[in-house]
């Protein structure tokens, strides 16, 4: 299971270039999500992403992380491989799925 809060409890901007302490979506995707996604694909298992424990997300961050992953690996692959958990904000799961579909 991948916990976003282990990356940062304050997810910030979209791109890395927006600052070293931006906790950007691009950085999370490259350093955390993509390696875990590839491993899950290799082992043919579901990757569980837990979104709880942060102070909140911005659209840019979520779109860059999950939309970006869908642009790289394909919308259906991402939708079928990842399971989202968000006890704190259950509506986020639908928002993210929409970003993946629109990517």
């Amino acid at each position: 299971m991948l916990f976003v809060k282990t990356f940062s409890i304050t997810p910030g901007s979209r791109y890395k270039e927006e600052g070293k302490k931006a906790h950007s979506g691009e950085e999370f995707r490259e350093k955390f999500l993509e390696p875990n996604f590839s491993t899950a694909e290799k082992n043919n298992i579901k990757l569980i992403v837990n979104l709880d424990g942060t102070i909140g997300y911005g659209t840019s961050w979520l779109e860059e992380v999950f939309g970006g992953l869908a642009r790289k690996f394909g919308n259906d692959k991402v939708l079928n491989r990842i399971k989202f958990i968000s006890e704190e904000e259950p509506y986020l799961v639908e928002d993210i799925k929409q970003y993946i579909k629109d990517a």
Partner: protein
Amino acid sequence: MHKYVKLGLATLVGIIAGFYLCILIKKYTVLTIDPTVSFEINPLEIFTMLATILLTIYVARTIGKANDLEKSEKEMIAHNLTDFKKEFCSKINSMLEQNEFDSVLTNSNFKILRKRIDAIVSLAVDYKFVPNNDPQSNELLNKIRDVWELFTNTPRTANGRTTAAVRNDINRLRLEQISKINMAVIEIEKLLFQLTMKVHRR
């Protein structure tokens, strides 16, 4: 206290009116009751009467309590919606004034706002003040999501190195976003009002 004063006054007026009514009846009518008239009381009728009185008290209390409970639930949900409206407008105005777009503070504010309105709508549905999948509630939640997207998916602000043309474009896009946010806020206020009225009407 005010309730008891009213009740006292009504009793006093009733006694005085009754007193004068008795005098008037005695003066202008020939209606008298024969002191030798006999009354017959059926024990079964007394039992029936007592049962009716007890039943009346029970029904009045039970229905009264249920009504009071429903009234307080309704008031609490309506109060929560009004409070949310104030909090929402205050936070949006503050973020607009301070140019807080796509920042950690904006993310945090929207996490609280979205979670709060989601909880209020869920409560309204659970207590049957609003039907499940109510179009107005759904529209309200979607509009708030739209405002969150407008705030957290904005173009980056121009810096010193940006060319004038790009700077103008970025500023124009930012103004467009602000205008869209303001329009959406008006819609949200309207929807919150309609939802409050819907809760009151139930």
